[in-house]
């Protein structure tokens, strides 16, 4: 099929593919970045900051804070990009829904939208969910990054 051929919702195959990527970024990659940030930070700090409890033969990781901040910065960057993409996907579909509505017959019943509008509305719902999850995990990252900001030592609470 030619990629530019519009489908029944008025979206081209390329647009559809992009929208799936945007939704996937929000649904999977943004939470994935958060999950990885917590796991990597936990593993690094647990391995390196063990002097107070059970001493290891040697520290697991040198330059611990560099590792932690680098991990967090990377995760935050990925998450922000994903949140932005998923929000963009939502905005795109929202605008498309409005334009279809505007193109329709003014006498058309609001409660009986055209099938193409329904299909767009369904995709808009998925994009909205993706944007909620994508943005939500940016907030999540801020939470967990604050842990290393407030606790700058391995051994004490400040």
């Amino acid at each position, binding site marked *: 099929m030619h990629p530019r051929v519009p489908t029944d919702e008025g979206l081209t195959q390329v647009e559809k593919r992009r929208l799936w990527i945007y939704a996937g970024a929000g649904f999977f990659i943004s939470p994935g970045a958060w999950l990885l940030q917590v796991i990597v930070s936990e593993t690094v700090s647990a391995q390196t*900051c063990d002097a107070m409890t059970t001493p290891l033969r040697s520290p697991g990781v040198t330059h611990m804070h560099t590792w932690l901040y680098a991990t967090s910065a990377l995760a935050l960057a990925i998450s922000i990009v994903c949140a932005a993409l998923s929000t963009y996907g939502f905005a795109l579909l929202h605008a498309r829904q409005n334009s279809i509505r505007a193109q329709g017959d003014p006498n058309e*019943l609001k*409660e009986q939208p055209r099938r193409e509008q329904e299909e767009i509305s369904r995709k808009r719902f998925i994009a909205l*969910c993706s944007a*909620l999850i994508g943005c939500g995990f940016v907030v999540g990252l801020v*939470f967990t990054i604050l842990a290393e900001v407030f606790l700058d030592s391995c051994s004490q609470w400040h």
Partner: protein
Amino acid sequence: MSATSDRSVVQSGRVAFRREPEYGSVPEGSDAEKRLREIWEGESGWRGFFTTVDHKKIGLRYIVTAFAFLLIGGVEALLMRLQLARPNETLLSPEQYAQLFTMHGVTMIFLYALPVLSGFANFLWPLMLGSRDMAFPRLNALSYWLFLFAGLFLYCSFPFGEAPNAGWFNYVPFSSLEYNRGPNIDVYSLGMVLLGISTTVGAVNFVVTLFRMRAVGMSVDRLPIIVWGTLTISFANLFAVPSVSLAFLLLWMDRNVGTHFFDVAADGRPLLWQHLFWMFAHPWVYVVVLPAMGIVSDALPTFCRRPLVAYAAVAMSTVATMIIGFEVWIHHMFATGIAPLALAFFGAASVLISIPSAVAVFAWIATIWMGRPVFTVPFLYFASFVLMFVIGGVSGVMTAAVPLDWQLNETYFIVAHLHYVLLGINVFPVLGGITYWFPKFTGRLMNERFGKIAFWIVFIGFNVGFFPMHISGLLGMPRRVYTYPEGMGWDTSNLVTTIGSFLLGIGIVLFAINALLSARRGSKAPPNPWDASGLEWSVSSPPPPYNFAVLPIIESRHPMWEDRIQPTGRRSHLKEGYLLHHGREALGVHPFSGKPDVILKMPDDAWSPFLLGVFAAFMFLALLLRSPSFTIISFAASGATLIAWMWPRRSLAQREPPTPKQVTAAPSALKDDALPVGSAGEHSGGWWGVLALVATEASLFGYLLFSYFYSQSQTQLPWPPEGIPKIGVGALSTGVLVLSSVFTWFSERTLKKNKRWWAFAWLLVAIVLGTLFVGVQLKEWHNHPYGLTAHLYGSLYFTITGFHLAHVLVGLVILILLAIWIALGYFDEARNAPMRIGGLYWHFVDVVWLFIFTALYVTPIWLRGQ
């Protein structure tokens, strides 16, 4: 897209396994309706009891069995409360108390909290989604039988005073053989593995059901929230349950085989147990509450006379809660000596969980606020649930702060918190949900007056019982103590707690009496007695055996409220739709688009789930009794039953050649609207099921490798103790296994081109290579100077490779069966779903080996270089 391609056009101009589904209506009482009833009505009597695969009967059995366990767990709690009502009480000995509090936790958390929700989901999902059954009816029955047998298994040693006694968390070293020499812990370990199988197969069924068994138009934005909740937790179960199953298996091996996973003397790590246990158990907390929150989200709007506020936000709060729930397990380990910075990440993540929870709470409050509440019994339970949720949630956020948790840890404050969370968020919605869907369960309404009395007693009893526990905890009372001395300041709060507990018990018993009496004498319910909006209320109360005479077409999120929400809008088709009445048939939809995809042939009632459940339970009993011969017999019986179950059946359109009934006239079968019939290619639910199984198996291996690396990171000993492993042998095994995967793929490809004997030949090569891998692996085992019990590394090495070898052997059996079926002419280029399913499993087994090879053979070289 068609799996049964033009190949099926036979010379006579007729086509097999493909037809256009009829569309029409089936009036109640018509011949067509009677015929449907005959088709779907299971056998009656004792035979029907054991063989039924009806999701409604299975769902009800889950609920009744779980409720029975709730009562048993409740009696255990009351005995403990009697013991604690006064200081220095001697009603129970310390050992009796330890067994009671362990069994109370095990019962409530594992045998009541999730099973009761599985009951709701089993009963309601097909009715809510517009389907005739779950995706795998026989698997559904197996899940129930395994749950029942696991429950009985866990209780089998209780009458002998040898019940599990180390708490539901079962920490080592107390649960290790040195400190706990009776069968208590073995019962718990094996029972949990058996229960884990039940939970996993149930989760696979839910996931595939949502993807495949929805009504046309039941798109993702129209799903009831309970479906979101159960789907989310089913995914969670697939990834979390392997962790606890593995933990208990490793503990059982430590106790019975002599391995050293948790053995401190051999540099094993008790904290490994805590990690594996809480990696499962914290997500599990959300597993037992999210569907219950779904009950409230779906049922509360009925009594507020308006749709749920912020549907999308509530659905996503469910998903977000579950995702976050996977990374907060260390907040159960704040006091284990982990470094403060490492704890801080989990403290922050634990606080974070309050955000999605708050979203749901505000949505419920807004729904009540903006609606016109009707104060019926279900509403009272749901509204009070919101209050309990807030109290339990706030005390949870308090304990997410590490320094405060260090003060409150192991005190009654935590007991109060977990009861507000688990009882408040689970039991209240469940009691409300039973009252709400009682007409669907029994065809009758529960007595409202009696119900209100029971509610107020439950509500008052719950709060009088559990709120003072906060105070006991703040006053320093430790949990899990069987008694306490006078003068500690805990007397009054404990006495009040005991009084409240008995009140709660009375309330629960009154609820049960009301349910029993109403089921027999309650007023008969019309199809939609509450004027609710969901699709399940469109069928009679109780629903007919076939659920929907015609498969509905859905046009909104609230099919039964369309006339008031969108008076001039489209209407869902509830009386007209796809007929599908050529035997037990259901409509399979495309997982993502939701468009009709396949006509599924559903299985009749069968003995296989019950028998497999019995043999599996016997196998675990044999392991408990340490009887190798009994174990082997039971294992063989389980395997034989499984093979009989899996054998392709012509009645389910799983194999060639077709019966005359499965062949239709070409003009009809080649229309655009025509659908394939039965299991074929991507239309096979089994493929999706095995994909889900592969996900859970992959997690199992992931947890095994985590155990390996965790132990390596903690040990002071050389790793591996006998020097670097022989990478050449490992590489040879890897090559052989990868090659076998390639030949399996060849076999799949050639079968698709209908070259049956070539497919057979390639599969034989794959089997030979797989067998060669087994031979090389056994030789390598033989050549090692150490064994399974020599040291920690040996335990890990042999367990990981042994686990994989077991999977290879299972895979080989599957490949041999596939070769037999190909030789018998069961498959061709279109009807080859078992080949694709078996191939998927075999490729998975091979890919897992690549990870194991990297972990066991490559990383020691790399780390030594470091």
